[in-house]
């Protein structure tokens, strides 16, 4: 099980709206926002690859989410930590 701290960048002014929308997102727990354009969350997934996929999907599917950046990634198995590739709409070469 992967446990990651993430910052989710939204369009300016949309942090609260996106935070509310993401409340139902499986494995993702929003734990704060800056009142404007950034959310802090904890994301749990089966594997780092799954986390990477979910981050990519989130950025790709919601116009007002601009990027997902990891701040801490750990594995709940006593092993080493790992992290997903940061995704952002602007930095997606396939976009």
């Amino acid at each position, binding site marked *: *099980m992967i*446990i*990651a*701290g*993430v*910052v989710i*960048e939204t*369009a*300016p002014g949309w942090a609260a709206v996106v935070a509310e929308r993401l409340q139902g997102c499986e494995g993702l*727990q*929003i*734990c*704060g*926002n*800056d*009142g404007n*354009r*950034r*959310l*802090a*969350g*904890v*994301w*749990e997934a089966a594997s*780092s*690859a799954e986390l*990477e996929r979910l981050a990519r999907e989130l950025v790709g599917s919601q116009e007002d989410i*601009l*990027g997902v*950046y*990891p*701040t*801490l*990634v*750990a594995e*709940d198995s*006593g092993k*080493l*930590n*790992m*992290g*997903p*590739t*940061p995704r*952002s709409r*602007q*930095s*997606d*070469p396939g*976009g």
Partner: protein
Amino acid sequence: MSISRRRFLELSAAASALAALGKGVVVGDAFAAEVGGATNWVKSVCRYCGTGCGVYVGVRDGKVFGVKGDQDNHNRGLLCVKSITLPQVMNAPDRLLYPLVRKNGKFERVSWDDAMTLIAARFKETIEKYGFDAVGFYGSGQALTEETYVANKLFKAGIRTNNVEGNPRLCMASAVGGYVTTFGKDEPMGCYEDIDHADVFFLVGTNTAEAHPIIFQRMLKRKEDNKSVKVIVLDPRLTPTTRAADLHISFVPGTDLAILNAMAYVLVKDGLVDEDFIKTHVALGEGTDVNRDWEAYKTFLSQYTPDKAAAIAGCKPEDIVTAAHWFGARGKTAMSMWTMGLNQRTRGVWANNLVHNLHLITGKIGVPGSTPFSLTGQPNACGGVRDGGALSHLLPYGRVIANDKHREEMEKLWGVPAGTLQPKPGPATVDLFRALEEGKLKALYIMCTNPGQSLPNLDRYRKAMQREDSFVVVTEAIHPTRTTELANVVLPAALWAEKEGVYGCSERRYQLLQKAVEPAGEARPDLDILCDFGRRLGHEKLVEFKNADDVWAELLPLAKGTPYDFTGMSRDRLRNSHGVLWPVPAASHPGTKRRYVKGDDPLVPADHPQRIKFYGRPDGRAVVWLRPQKPPEEVVDAEYPFYYTTGRVLQHWHTATMTRNCKELKSTVEAMAEMHADDASKLGVRTGDSVRIASRRGQEVFRAKVTANSRPGLVFVHMHDADRMCNRVTIDAVDPISKEPEFKICAVKVSKA
């Protein structure tokens, strides 16, 4: 309060994310009571690029188990994927745990004493038989400042050779040459905070989104917060960086000097220059002397009308005009950033000069949001090498070998007899390895770098490292690498959080990496290894250091009174801070955000009549250089019809000895030959097909990736793959001023393999 490991990790993750948001955070109820409970985090700096992101290293049971961003540092708690996966590198299966010596073609484990006895004996024997210039040192912009300093001192003042080079010659030498020729002294005058004030970003020869993602993120934030902010990108390729651009100018590789001059032409023609600033702060020159006036400059620029430049560069003239108008707009600030696209060129210093020109003629320099600002590729290329003086022509803190007074000064400071330091600069990197090839250099000590993969025209110098009569020592944390596989002796070096020392990043911010865990296996910090080596060579008085603190104590007085003065940066101050920007000549000085600016830079006299003084030059004026467009060393022709260029991707760093150890990253380590669909179609190549890329020097086989990102006639390969080495193809021609090789451009042919 007792919590489970899982809850501990959840809280740590939440704390790190909340920390990244900074102050004014609205915290959810579930975490409000518990976040911040995590302990046992050691303050440090990321091991990778020159951004210098502050991190905390999480330690559990004597092992590094996590990394989180430092919210009080410039990166505001954010990290990229490479940093966050660093713990996997610390405990990687290919960490080298004990010394190895090659015997009968195979590596055998030996004791430290046996390895060091052998190395000292071979170096002594070589020096006695062939003279001190038969040995040399090749270091790294990744080594700690203290390590680089001691290596330079040992080789130049102890062994008495100037055969001291390092991989910064391959990356930042042209930027240094640009700063020194234009401003008189090395290093940027701006800082990261300028990003928050810039109205125009001018990115040239940089894929910032992938090579410096945290800086790119800060730039995006500025752009998103201010809709009028413009981003101009000059890059032959479409990259993740160009996708954020308001204006992307693609051009034929090697023609950007024409574009930069044409922008200056437009700025002058359309009255967007700052005449007062030019009169007060600028001199003009051509060649190596300040010998031109404004009229001569205007005449020079007339060769570079947008139409003429666009014809050379294969771009639209109206885009050049737009770029110049945005850059020069009255009342708007402008910040330039660049990396290897400008530096790794045979005209790298000139290209740097031309970017500086744009700022100098518009006066867009030295105010928040206006600055030229080179981005550094390695974590300590901006600190350790200049501070240590660890290139063949340098001595510590901007002193140079060729200056009699500088040598005398250093001989006194180091306590060695007059005449100890040799007056002739040693060879730059390419020539150093040519000396190895020619058998003139017989013993080479390589520290913390991988030239067996990273040198241009690679096969030539790999052969040199394998000469029967050469003796190559490599200190390295990882084995095998493409360099350790060629070595006679490989010594296990402590890595990152296993030792303590200073890194200096792109913005002149020096930071202390604190030791968090014990070295793996029998690994030792490079500082210990160097001091041991020095003692065995009989130079114990030069290396009387018990630890890195001792080295720092010796370093600080050497900086005093120089333009790089940071004598106010005590070890304790570094330990307790999140980095300090020099100049900082006293403990009470807060550090300098913007150099050359009165009231900010302590080296500008308080009574100086203008707001800026370019004190690096005797006349206090920066130089606008007349630098013509020159083609790269190698241009395409009928036999070699494609341009070949190399670069980075987000997930990997340098030769990937570290990032390949991260399981989420290693799947992207394969270098593929990215080519435009039109070119692929003509060659009958589809994505996944094997193609052979051959230059006049060497060849390599890659799988093809057909993409719209590449410009027709251009093939791109990333530089990280140890199995498909891009540098078998690259050219080892160098810039005549900086001696930096032209990694970024050569001519190749492509065929199906």
